[in-house]
Protein backbone atom coordinates (compact mmCIF):
# COMPACT_ATOMS: atom_id res chain seq x y z
CA UNK A 1 0.00 0.00 0.00
CA UNK A 2 1.28 3.51 -0.67
CA UNK A 3 2.04 5.33 2.53
CA UNK A 4 1.37 8.99 3.08
CA UNK A 5 3.89 10.91 5.11
CA UNK A 6 2.52 12.51 8.26
CA UNK A 7 2.03 16.21 8.89
CA UNK A 8 3.35 17.01 12.35
CA UNK A 9 4.57 20.14 14.10
CA UNK A 10 6.85 18.52 16.61
CA UNK A 11 9.05 19.88 19.35
CA UNK A 12 12.23 20.00 17.30
CA UNK A 13 11.01 19.19 13.83
CA UNK A 14 8.24 19.79 11.38
CA UNK A 15 7.30 16.86 9.18
CA UNK A 16 5.11 16.95 6.10
CA UNK A 17 4.65 15.06 2.84
CA UNK A 18 6.91 16.22 0.04
CA UNK A 19 5.17 18.19 -2.69
CA UNK A 20 6.17 19.31 -6.19
CA UNK A 21 7.45 22.60 -4.81
CA UNK A 22 10.13 20.69 -2.90
CA UNK A 23 11.72 19.33 -6.03
CA UNK A 24 14.77 21.60 -6.06
CA UNK A 25 15.41 21.37 -2.31
CA UNK A 26 15.07 17.60 -2.41
CA UNK A 27 17.44 17.45 -5.36
CA UNK A 28 20.02 19.39 -3.34
CA UNK A 29 19.53 17.10 -0.36
CA UNK A 30 19.71 14.01 -2.55
CA UNK A 31 22.96 15.26 -4.05
CA UNK A 32 24.44 15.72 -0.56
CA UNK A 33 23.18 12.29 0.33
CA UNK A 34 24.78 10.73 -2.69
CA UNK A 35 28.17 12.13 -1.67
CA UNK A 36 28.00 10.62 1.81
CA UNK A 37 29.81 7.27 1.54
CA UNK A 38 27.46 5.61 3.98
CA UNK A 39 24.33 6.54 2.07
CA UNK A 40 24.46 4.23 -0.90
CA UNK A 41 25.09 6.65 -3.71
CA UNK A 42 22.82 8.41 -6.13
CA UNK A 43 19.17 7.39 -6.17
CA UNK A 44 17.05 9.38 -8.58
CA UNK A 45 13.53 10.17 -7.49
CA UNK A 46 10.54 9.46 -9.74
CA UNK A 47 10.38 11.68 -12.80
CA UNK A 48 6.86 12.76 -11.89
CA UNK A 49 8.07 14.59 -8.80
CA UNK A 50 8.34 13.65 -5.15
CA UNK A 51 5.98 11.00 -3.86
CA UNK A 52 3.64 11.79 -0.95
CA UNK A 53 5.21 8.84 0.82
CA UNK A 54 8.37 10.93 1.10
CA UNK A 55 8.40 12.98 4.29
CA UNK A 56 10.42 16.15 4.40
CA UNK A 57 11.90 17.33 7.70
CA UNK A 58 12.26 20.99 8.54
CA UNK A 59 13.48 22.80 11.63
CA UNK A 60 10.56 24.31 13.58
CA UNK A 61 11.52 27.86 12.65
CA UNK A 62 12.96 27.34 9.19
CA UNK A 63 11.77 26.74 5.68
CA UNK A 64 14.81 24.79 4.59
CA UNK A 65 14.39 21.07 4.11
CA UNK A 66 17.04 19.42 6.28
CA UNK A 67 16.05 15.80 5.85
CA UNK A 68 13.87 13.30 4.04
CA UNK A 69 12.35 10.00 5.07
CA UNK A 70 11.13 7.55 2.44
CA UNK A 71 8.77 4.71 3.27
CA UNK A 72 8.14 2.13 0.56
CA UNK A 73 6.67 -1.35 0.51
CA UNK A 74 9.39 -3.94 0.40
CA UNK A 75 8.97 -5.78 -2.89
CA UNK A 76 7.31 -9.15 -2.37
CA UNK A 77 6.44 -8.68 1.29
CA UNK A 78 3.09 -6.99 1.92
CA UNK A 79 3.03 -5.10 5.18
CA UNK A 80 6.80 -4.77 5.33
CA UNK A 81 7.95 -1.20 4.82
CA UNK A 82 11.47 -0.28 3.84
CA UNK A 83 12.29 3.03 5.51
CA UNK A 84 15.27 5.13 4.53
CA UNK A 85 16.28 8.46 5.94
CA UNK A 86 18.84 11.15 5.36
CA UNK A 87 19.35 14.40 7.18
CA UNK A 88 21.89 17.12 6.70
CA UNK A 89 23.89 16.70 9.91
CA UNK A 90 24.98 20.35 9.86
CA UNK A 91 21.41 21.58 9.93
CA UNK A 92 19.42 18.84 11.66
CA UNK A 93 20.36 19.50 15.24
CA UNK A 94 19.05 18.80 18.71
CA UNK A 95 17.47 15.46 18.03
CA UNK A 96 15.59 16.68 14.98
CA UNK A 97 16.45 13.58 13.00
CA UNK A 98 15.39 11.09 15.64
CA UNK A 99 12.19 12.93 16.37
CA UNK A 100 11.40 13.12 12.66
CA UNK A 101 12.14 9.43 12.30
CA UNK A 102 9.82 8.66 15.22
CA UNK A 103 6.93 10.61 13.72
CA UNK A 104 7.33 8.78 10.42
CA UNK A 105 7.57 5.33 11.99
CA UNK A 106 4.54 6.05 14.16
CA UNK A 107 2.62 7.08 11.06
CA UNK A 108 3.68 4.05 9.02
CA UNK A 109 2.53 1.68 11.75
CA UNK A 110 -0.73 3.64 12.09
CA UNK A 111 -1.33 3.10 8.36
CA UNK A 112 -1.09 -0.67 8.72
CA UNK A 113 2.54 -1.66 8.40
CA UNK A 114 3.50 -4.89 10.19
CA UNK A 115 7.26 -4.60 9.99
CA UNK A 116 9.77 -1.77 9.55
CA UNK A 117 12.75 -2.88 7.48
CA UNK A 118 16.07 -1.08 7.20
CA UNK A 119 19.10 -1.90 5.07
CA UNK A 120 22.31 -0.32 6.29
CA UNK A 121 25.72 -0.39 4.70
CA UNK A 122 28.27 -2.21 6.83
CA UNK A 123 30.45 0.89 6.76
CA UNK A 124 27.73 2.97 8.43
CA UNK A 125 28.94 2.46 11.98
CA UNK A 126 27.00 5.32 13.58
CA UNK A 127 23.70 3.85 12.49
CA UNK A 128 24.75 0.35 13.46
CA UNK A 129 25.55 1.73 16.93
CA UNK A 130 22.20 3.46 17.00
CA UNK A 131 20.41 0.24 16.11
CA UNK A 132 22.28 -1.59 18.87
CA UNK A 133 21.17 1.13 21.26
CA UNK A 134 17.59 0.54 20.20
CA UNK A 135 18.12 -3.21 20.67
CA UNK A 136 17.30 -3.83 17.05
CA UNK A 137 19.67 -6.62 16.11
CA UNK A 138 20.79 -7.32 12.56
CA UNK A 139 19.11 -10.38 11.12
CA UNK A 140 20.92 -10.75 7.81
CA UNK A 141 24.12 -9.61 6.16
CA UNK A 142 24.13 -9.58 2.37
CA UNK A 143 27.75 -9.99 1.33
CA UNK A 144 29.16 -7.63 -1.31
CA UNK A 145 25.67 -6.39 -2.09
CA UNK A 146 26.14 -2.67 -2.75
CA UNK A 147 28.68 -0.80 -4.81
CA UNK A 148 29.38 2.41 -2.94
CA UNK A 149 32.37 4.71 -2.66
CA UNK A 150 34.40 2.75 -5.15
CA UNK A 151 33.88 -0.80 -3.96
CA UNK A 152 31.36 -3.44 -2.95
CA UNK A 153 30.15 -3.49 0.66
CA UNK A 154 28.06 -5.79 2.77
CA UNK A 155 24.55 -4.66 3.55
CA UNK A 156 22.99 -5.36 6.92
CA UNK A 157 19.25 -5.93 7.30
CA UNK A 158 17.33 -4.89 10.39
CA UNK A 159 13.64 -5.10 11.13
CA UNK A 160 11.20 -4.68 13.98
CA UNK A 161 7.49 -4.80 14.60
CA UNK A 162 5.20 -2.39 16.43
CA UNK A 163 5.57 -4.23 19.73
CA UNK A 164 9.30 -3.70 19.60
CA UNK A 165 8.79 -0.09 18.60
CA UNK A 166 6.63 0.43 21.69
CA UNK A 167 9.31 -1.18 23.83
CA UNK A 168 11.88 1.22 22.41
CA UNK A 169 9.73 4.18 23.32
CA UNK A 170 9.10 2.78 26.80
CA UNK A 171 12.76 2.08 27.40
CA UNK A 172 14.10 5.44 26.25
CA UNK A 173 12.00 8.05 28.04
CA UNK A 174 14.58 10.78 27.50
CA UNK A 175 15.20 10.15 23.85
CA UNK A 176 13.94 12.47 21.12
CA UNK A 177 12.14 9.37 19.87
CA UNK A 178 9.66 9.88 22.68
CA UNK A 179 8.40 13.11 21.24
CA UNK A 180 5.50 11.27 19.73
CA UNK A 181 2.33 9.91 21.21
CA UNK A 182 0.28 6.99 20.07
CA UNK A 183 -1.52 9.11 17.48
CA UNK A 184 1.71 10.24 15.93
CA UNK A 185 1.33 13.74 17.38
CA UNK A 186 4.09 15.50 19.27
CA UNK A 187 4.63 13.97 22.68
CA UNK A 188 3.91 15.82 25.89
CA UNK A 189 4.88 15.77 29.53
CA UNK A 190 7.91 13.62 29.01
CA UNK A 191 10.37 16.46 29.31
CA UNK A 192 12.11 15.40 26.16
CA UNK A 193 12.43 18.90 24.76
CA UNK A 194 14.68 19.88 27.65
CA UNK A 195 16.92 16.89 27.32
CA UNK A 196 20.00 16.74 25.16
CA UNK A 197 19.69 14.37 22.25
CA UNK A 198 20.96 10.91 22.93
CA UNK A 199 21.67 10.26 19.28
CA UNK A 200 21.29 12.14 16.08
CA UNK A 201 20.88 9.97 13.08
CA UNK A 202 22.22 11.57 9.96
CA UNK A 203 21.67 8.62 7.75
CA UNK A 204 19.52 5.64 8.48
CA UNK A 205 19.22 3.01 5.86
CA UNK A 206 21.38 3.41 2.89
CA UNK A 207 20.59 1.12 0.08
CA UNK A 208 18.02 1.92 -2.50
CA UNK A 209 16.02 -1.01 -3.76
CA UNK A 210 16.32 0.31 -7.27
CA UNK A 211 20.12 0.37 -7.21
Amino acid at each position, binding site marked *: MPFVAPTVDGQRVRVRPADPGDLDDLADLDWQRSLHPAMG*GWAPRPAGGPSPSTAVLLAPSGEEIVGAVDARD*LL*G*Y*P*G*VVNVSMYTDATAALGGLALEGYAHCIQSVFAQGA*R*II*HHEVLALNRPIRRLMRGLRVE*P*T*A*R*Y*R*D*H*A*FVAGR*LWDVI*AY*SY*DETHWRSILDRLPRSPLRRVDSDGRPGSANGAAQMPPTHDADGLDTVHRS*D
Partner: protein
Amino acid sequence: MTSPATTPEAVPAITQLDGISLQPLEPAHAPIVASLLSMRGHRFILDIPSDEATLTQLLAELGRQTWTLPLAAVVGGECLGVVTTALGNVKSLHASITALFVDPTTATTALAMGIRHLFWTFPLHRVHAQIPDMDLTREYVDLLTSVGFVDEGRLQDHLVLAGRSFDVVTLGLLRTDFEAWCSDNEPRLSFSV
Protein backbone atom coordinates in the same frame (compact mmCIF):
# COMPACT_ATOMS: atom_id res chain seq x y z
CA MET B 1 61.79 -4.77 -25.12
CA THR B 2 58.47 -5.85 -23.74
CA SER B 3 57.20 -9.40 -23.82
CA PRO B 4 54.21 -10.09 -26.04
CA ALA B 5 50.87 -9.73 -24.32
CA THR B 6 49.26 -12.98 -23.32
CA THR B 7 45.85 -13.52 -24.83
CA PRO B 8 43.53 -15.06 -22.28
CA GLU B 9 41.85 -18.27 -23.23
CA ALA B 10 38.07 -18.25 -23.30
CA VAL B 11 36.29 -20.91 -21.32
CA PRO B 12 33.45 -22.51 -23.24
CA ALA B 13 29.77 -22.40 -22.42
CA ILE B 14 28.65 -25.66 -20.87
CA THR B 15 25.05 -26.47 -21.70
CA GLN B 16 25.36 -30.27 -21.80
CA LEU B 17 26.62 -32.37 -18.93
CA ASP B 18 25.81 -35.87 -17.76
CA GLY B 19 22.75 -36.00 -20.02
CA ILE B 20 21.38 -32.70 -18.71
CA SER B 21 20.80 -30.03 -21.32
CA LEU B 22 20.25 -26.32 -20.67
CA GLN B 23 17.83 -24.64 -23.02
CA PRO B 24 16.36 -21.15 -23.14
CA LEU B 25 12.99 -20.92 -21.45
CA GLU B 26 10.62 -19.28 -23.94
CA PRO B 27 7.12 -17.87 -23.52
CA ALA B 28 5.83 -20.99 -25.30
CA HIS B 29 7.01 -22.98 -22.28
CA ALA B 30 4.40 -21.37 -20.03
CA PRO B 31 2.55 -24.69 -19.52
CA ILE B 32 5.74 -26.24 -18.13
CA VAL B 33 6.18 -23.37 -15.70
CA ALA B 34 2.50 -23.57 -14.73
CA SER B 35 2.98 -27.23 -13.95
CA LEU B 36 6.10 -26.53 -11.90
CA LEU B 37 4.33 -23.81 -9.92
CA SER B 38 1.67 -26.30 -8.86
CA MET B 39 4.23 -28.68 -7.33
CA ARG B 40 5.72 -28.93 -3.84
CA GLY B 41 6.04 -25.57 -2.06
CA HIS B 42 6.80 -23.66 -5.25
CA ARG B 43 3.94 -21.22 -4.89
CA PHE B 44 5.58 -19.99 -1.68
CA ILE B 45 8.86 -19.37 -3.49
CA LEU B 46 7.41 -17.69 -6.56
CA ASP B 47 4.08 -16.03 -5.96
CA ILE B 48 2.90 -15.26 -9.47
CA PRO B 49 -0.31 -16.02 -11.35
CA SER B 50 -0.17 -19.53 -12.74
CA ASP B 51 -2.59 -19.23 -15.65
CA GLU B 52 -0.83 -19.85 -18.94
CA ALA B 53 -1.78 -16.58 -20.62
CA THR B 54 -0.30 -14.52 -17.80
CA LEU B 55 2.76 -16.76 -17.58
CA THR B 56 3.35 -16.43 -21.31
CA GLN B 57 3.39 -12.66 -20.94
CA LEU B 58 5.57 -12.79 -17.81
CA LEU B 59 8.12 -15.01 -19.52
CA ALA B 60 8.26 -12.66 -22.50
CA GLU B 61 8.83 -9.69 -20.19
CA LEU B 62 11.33 -11.56 -18.04
CA GLY B 63 13.52 -12.34 -21.02
CA ARG B 64 13.86 -8.62 -21.75
CA GLN B 65 15.03 -7.66 -18.26
CA THR B 66 18.59 -6.71 -17.50
CA TRP B 67 20.90 -9.68 -16.98
CA THR B 68 18.04 -12.12 -17.14
CA LEU B 69 18.22 -15.42 -18.94
CA PRO B 70 15.47 -17.91 -18.11
CA LEU B 71 16.76 -21.46 -18.57
CA ALA B 72 15.20 -24.89 -18.54
CA ALA B 73 17.14 -27.99 -17.52
CA VAL B 74 16.06 -30.92 -19.65
CA VAL B 75 16.87 -34.64 -19.67
CA GLY B 76 15.57 -36.84 -22.47
CA GLY B 77 12.90 -34.33 -23.41
CA GLU B 78 11.65 -34.06 -19.83
CA CYS B 79 12.00 -30.76 -18.00
CA LEU B 80 13.81 -31.18 -14.69
CA GLY B 81 13.23 -27.57 -13.71
CA VAL B 82 13.91 -23.93 -14.47
CA VAL B 83 16.47 -21.38 -13.34
CA THR B 84 16.48 -17.67 -13.97
CA THR B 85 17.92 -14.44 -12.75
CA ALA B 86 15.77 -11.34 -12.26
CA LEU B 87 16.12 -7.85 -10.86
CA GLY B 88 19.60 -7.43 -12.25
CA ASN B 89 21.51 -4.59 -10.63
CA VAL B 90 24.11 -3.18 -12.99
CA LYS B 91 25.59 -0.86 -10.38
CA SER B 92 26.20 -3.47 -7.71
CA LEU B 93 26.61 -6.41 -10.09
CA HIS B 94 24.04 -8.68 -8.54
CA ALA B 95 20.74 -10.32 -9.43
CA SER B 96 18.16 -12.40 -7.67
CA ILE B 97 17.91 -16.03 -8.74
CA THR B 98 14.91 -18.34 -8.75
CA ALA B 99 15.08 -22.08 -9.27
CA LEU B 100 12.17 -24.52 -9.37
CA PHE B 101 12.70 -28.24 -9.90
CA VAL B 102 10.45 -31.25 -10.14
CA ASP B 103 12.72 -32.93 -7.59
CA PRO B 104 15.05 -30.43 -5.90
CA THR B 105 16.69 -33.19 -3.89
CA THR B 106 18.39 -34.45 -7.06
CA ALA B 107 18.89 -31.14 -8.87
CA THR B 108 22.33 -30.04 -7.68
CA THR B 109 24.10 -30.61 -11.00
CA ALA B 110 21.31 -29.05 -13.07
CA LEU B 111 21.24 -25.99 -10.82
CA ALA B 112 25.02 -25.69 -10.87
CA MET B 113 24.94 -25.78 -14.67
CA GLY B 114 22.34 -23.02 -14.72
CA ILE B 115 24.30 -20.86 -12.30
CA ARG B 116 27.49 -21.48 -14.20
CA HIS B 117 25.82 -20.37 -17.43
CA LEU B 118 24.45 -17.22 -15.79
CA PHE B 119 27.91 -16.32 -14.41
CA TRP B 120 29.35 -17.16 -17.84
CA THR B 121 26.83 -14.95 -19.63
CA PHE B 122 26.64 -11.88 -17.37
CA PRO B 123 29.27 -9.92 -15.39
CA LEU B 124 27.51 -10.80 -12.16
CA HIS B 125 29.51 -10.67 -8.96
CA ARG B 126 26.73 -12.16 -6.86
CA VAL B 127 23.38 -13.90 -7.08
CA HIS B 128 20.99 -14.07 -4.16
CA ALA B 129 17.78 -15.80 -3.18
CA GLN B 130 15.12 -15.48 -0.51
CA ILE B 131 13.32 -18.66 0.56
CA PRO B 132 10.48 -18.76 3.10
CA ASP B 133 11.54 -20.64 6.20
CA MET B 134 8.90 -23.36 6.21
CA ASP B 135 8.81 -27.13 5.95
CA LEU B 136 7.59 -27.11 2.35
CA THR B 137 10.45 -24.97 1.07
CA ARG B 138 13.35 -26.12 3.21
CA GLU B 139 14.50 -28.44 0.42
CA TYR B 140 15.34 -25.32 -1.59
CA VAL B 141 17.58 -23.97 1.15
CA ASP B 142 19.30 -27.36 1.03
CA LEU B 143 19.51 -27.28 -2.77
CA LEU B 144 20.97 -23.77 -2.90
CA THR B 145 23.52 -24.47 -0.18
CA SER B 146 24.45 -27.68 -2.03
CA VAL B 147 25.87 -25.54 -4.85
CA GLY B 148 27.74 -23.12 -2.59
CA PHE B 149 25.16 -20.57 -1.52
CA VAL B 150 25.84 -19.13 1.92
CA ASP B 151 23.04 -18.64 4.46
CA GLU B 152 23.26 -14.89 5.10
CA GLY B 153 20.54 -14.64 7.72
CA ARG B 154 16.82 -14.16 8.10
CA LEU B 155 14.23 -11.53 7.35
CA GLN B 156 12.13 -11.92 10.45
CA ASP B 157 8.37 -12.36 10.07
CA HIS B 158 8.48 -10.82 6.61
CA LEU B 159 6.00 -13.25 5.13
CA VAL B 160 2.44 -13.88 6.28
CA LEU B 161 0.53 -16.89 4.99
CA ALA B 162 -2.88 -17.88 6.27
CA GLY B 163 -2.44 -15.56 9.22
CA ARG B 164 0.90 -17.00 10.27
CA SER B 165 4.23 -15.20 10.06
CA PHE B 166 7.30 -16.82 8.59
CA ASP B 167 10.91 -15.77 8.46
CA VAL B 168 12.60 -15.66 5.07
CA VAL B 169 16.03 -17.24 4.64
CA THR B 170 18.43 -15.04 2.67
CA LEU B 171 21.13 -16.79 0.67
CA GLY B 172 23.94 -15.38 -1.41
CA LEU B 173 26.49 -16.80 -3.81
CA LEU B 174 29.51 -14.81 -4.93
CA ARG B 175 31.24 -15.68 -8.16
CA THR B 176 34.26 -16.63 -6.05
CA ASP B 177 32.09 -18.90 -3.87
CA PHE B 178 30.88 -20.68 -6.97
CA GLU B 179 34.36 -21.06 -8.39
CA ALA B 180 35.50 -22.57 -5.07
CA TRP B 181 32.48 -24.89 -5.10
CA CYS B 182 33.30 -26.02 -8.63
CA SER B 183 36.91 -26.60 -7.71
CA ASP B 184 35.87 -28.80 -4.79
CA ASN B 185 32.82 -30.50 -6.26
CA GLU B 186 32.51 -30.23 -10.03
CA PRO B 187 35.73 -29.13 -11.77
CA ARG B 188 34.08 -29.56 -15.16
CA LEU B 189 32.07 -26.39 -14.44
CA SER B 190 35.04 -24.36 -13.27
CA PHE B 191 36.05 -21.18 -15.07
CA SER B 192 39.69 -21.97 -14.48
CA VAL B 193 41.30 -23.03 -17.71
